[in-house]
């Protein structure tokens, strides 16, 4: 089945054969497409726009925090900025990012299918997502929201006079997009694998997407109901969460975190799947410990549902509840550690090259390790009492979500860019950007660990002067990070038109998407559905095949 992928066939200009990009032209062919590859690109465009809104908010926040008394805006505005940043980055960027873009594009290709199980539902998911984004933008531009992305009542229901209901409805609707995407993926992976593609021959990206989809399906409905109840409370004041009317504000927190903790695993698991693909491709080796990595994804998905109480250790819940959630939170860390060791061991005796995707992957492993280990400080009851609600928590989750998930996302975008667009991007600029992102990121967030232990609370628009040095360091890092993110935006766009035509398999990687589907693929993905006879990442048969 597989052609010796190290042999780089003469690049057939994409214009002279039918690909999913040129099969049909015109806005209607994109807006009414049922092709999973085009839908992936529709999502890519949408979440990139949302990322920019969230990123601008972050930038303004870091400018504000240059000075202890605030350098830019009034607290009222700052409160809206951190809320908008959080809501957009969580619900409208990170949650859909890898699943809706790379997941949609790659899952059928990787398993040898022609499309996802329900292509029309897939398109509907995108429209639902866009509707959610629109409502969120209406909320932002009609005055903003100032409750924090956590929307805790009674502040959000009774005291904040901002566009809470619009924003809650935007998230509610976007949630259905996630649910339907997750459903589509699970059915696709169960029912549409090519002949011979057994579960344990699947690429690890598929395992990661499967685990993520379980969380989508089971967790998202709960946040939907929670936000709906909050909206009802805000509009009708019947006392669902208002203690003065017999309600319980902690019930909101339990329901909110029941989804929002698994949500953070929605944000990291796909990234872990990408890393498995990048590490193997750029060391030309099988993954070390395939079944451990595959099962660890499933373990994370399951355990993620029973740790939510660690967000509530200082709310006055019972000591026993604290102990149980603490031990379970330690438990959920173990599978992630197993992955980190397996990825590192995959490099052993590999044949490693340092193109930009690999730089992102290696950066991920280190930064995710640090982010994950700082999670232990928060799973530990005694230290969490001191650290909860401070910048330590902010640093911890940014290490995982930015140092982890966003870097994995960028690494994946770069890796599969030739497959998606048929073009190469300039690798030198890509490596420079990766380095800038790595440096800028660490300078932004490492000082925040120190700030946090010193006691600086989060969500503060102004702060005591003694924290200024650390804040200035952090803001300086943020400006470098911003440049680092801007550079790929420019060259990736540029490459779509001016980049050199990509060969069939520029990285020499294994996988049906590289070895069988053309670059870029035709609308039906494969001329004939392949039959799979080997396990994933089986580079051995290529040994000595051809020398250039």
């Amino acid at each position, binding site marked *: *089945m*597989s052609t010796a992928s190290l042999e780089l066939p003469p690049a057939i200009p994409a214009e002279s054969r039918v690909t999913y990009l040129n099969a049909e032209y015109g806005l209607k062919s994109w807006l009414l497409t049922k092709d999973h590859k085009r839908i992936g690109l529709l999502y890519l465009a949408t979440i990139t726009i949302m990322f920019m809104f969230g990123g601008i908010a972050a930038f303004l926040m870091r400018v504000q925090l240059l000075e202890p008394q605030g350098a830019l805006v009034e607290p009222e505005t700052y409160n809206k900025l951190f809320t908008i940043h959080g809501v957009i980055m969580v619900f409208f960027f990170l949650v859909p990012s890898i699943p809706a873009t790379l997941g949609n594009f790659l899952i*059928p290709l990787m398993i040898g*299918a*022609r*499309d*996802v*199980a*329900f*292509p029309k539902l897939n398109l509907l998911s995108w429209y639902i997502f866009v509707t959610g984004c629109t409502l969120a933008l209406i909320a932002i531009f009609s005055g903003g929201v100032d409750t924090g992305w956590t929307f805790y009542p009674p502040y959000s229901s009774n005291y904040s006079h901002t566009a809470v209901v619009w924003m809650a409805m935007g998230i509610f609707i976007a949630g259905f997009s996630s*649910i339907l995407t997750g*459903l*589509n993926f*699970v*059915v*696709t992976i*169960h*029912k*549409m694998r090519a*002949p011979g593609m057994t579960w344990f021959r699947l690429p690890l990206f598929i395992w990661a997407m499967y685990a993520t989809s379980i969380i989508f*399906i*089971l*967790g*998202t*409905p*709960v946040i*939907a*109901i*929670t936000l*709906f*109840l909050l909206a*009802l409370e805000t*509009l*009708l004041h*019947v*006392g*669902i969460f208002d203690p003065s*009317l*017999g*309600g*319980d504000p902690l*019930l909101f927190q339990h*329901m909110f975190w029941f989804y929002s903790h698994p949500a953070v695993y929605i944000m990291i698991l796909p990234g872990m799947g990408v890393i498995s693909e990048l590490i193997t491709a750029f060391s030309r080796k099988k993954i070390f410990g395939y079944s451990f990595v595959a099962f660890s994804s499933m373990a994370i998905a399951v355990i993620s549902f029973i740790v939510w109480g660690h967000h509530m250790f200082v709310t006055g819940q019972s000591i026993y509840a604290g102990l149980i959630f603490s031990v379970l939170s330690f438990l959920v860390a173990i599978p992630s550690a197993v992955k980190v060791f397996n990825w590192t061991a995959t490099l052993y005796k590999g044949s490693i090259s340092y193109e930009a995707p690999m730089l992102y992957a290696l950066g991920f492993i280190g930064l995710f390790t640090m982010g994950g280990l700082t999670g232990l400080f928060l799973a530990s009851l005694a230290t969490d009492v001191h650290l909860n609600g401070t910048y330590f928590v902010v640093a911890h989750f940014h290490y995982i979500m930015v140092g982890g998930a966003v870097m994995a996302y960028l690494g994946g975008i770069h890796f599969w860019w030739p497959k998606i667009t048929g073009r190469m991007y300039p690798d030198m600029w890509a490596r420079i950007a990766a380095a800038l992102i790595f440096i800028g990121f660490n300078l932004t967030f490492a000082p925040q660990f120190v700030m946090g232990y010193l006691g600086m609370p989060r969500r503060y628009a102004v702060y005591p002067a003694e924290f200024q040095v650390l804040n200035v360091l952090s803001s300086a890092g943020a400006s470098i990070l911003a440049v680092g993110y801007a550079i790929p935006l420019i060259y990736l766009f540029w490459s779509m038109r001016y980049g050199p035509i990509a060969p069939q398999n520029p990285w020499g990687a294994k996988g049906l998407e590289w070895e069988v589907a053309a670059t870029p693929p035709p609308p*039906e993905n494969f001329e*004939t*559905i*392949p*039959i799979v*006879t*080997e396990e994933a990442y089986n580079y051995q048969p290529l040994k000595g095949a051809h020398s250039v």
Partner: protein
Amino acid sequence: MSDAAVTHEGHGHGHVAHQFETVEQQREAGQLGMWLFLMTEILFFGGMFTAYTVYRELHLPAFELASREILEAKYGATNTAVLICSSLTMALAIHSAHTGKKKWQTMMWLVFTMILGLTFLGIKLRFEWYEDYIHHFVPGLGFQYRPEWSSLGSQMGQVQMFMCFYFFMTGLHALHMIVGLGILTVLLIMTARNRFSPDYVAPLEISGLYWHFVDIVWIFLFPLLYLVGGRYPH
């Protein structure tokens, strides 16, 4: 490692969508998809059931009074019977198509199901919700406290909370019923156009799953909402 072409089946009975290789694959995918969707619905309703249960535990006297005095169990019970019958007629519709009966039989059972569904909605709308509205029991639409509830003292506010949950939960359920009626209409048209055969009943089966699920949700809702506390003072 040679390529093998996989041929399409399924000509004649039922169209196989382009992403599927066989009718069987398509059918199984549809079934799995619907079961997964129903699982999300369980979590969706489950979130509300959880919140309701917490507050029922905290404010039982108010919830008992609201359930006993405002809701009328006879309508709830009738509607339960109506829905159970509609699940029966739905199953009979699927059976009829599966066993190759004439299409008018399948259509008849589908129509009965729709009539029962409309009956459910009619009873709910006319005898429950409309009555609640004109008696000022709808939160947000002129809700008024009754003087005879003052025995609840400071818990009186929770009567309104109960009604909030009542309308929200039954409203969400009714929304699912309306969607179900829409699906039944589509199935009716498809049956009329001879789309189904003993080999191809997938859309009917999947819709049947959905309809039964909506029925089961009601079977939980009825005792939870209508049968709180006894009929007699204790």
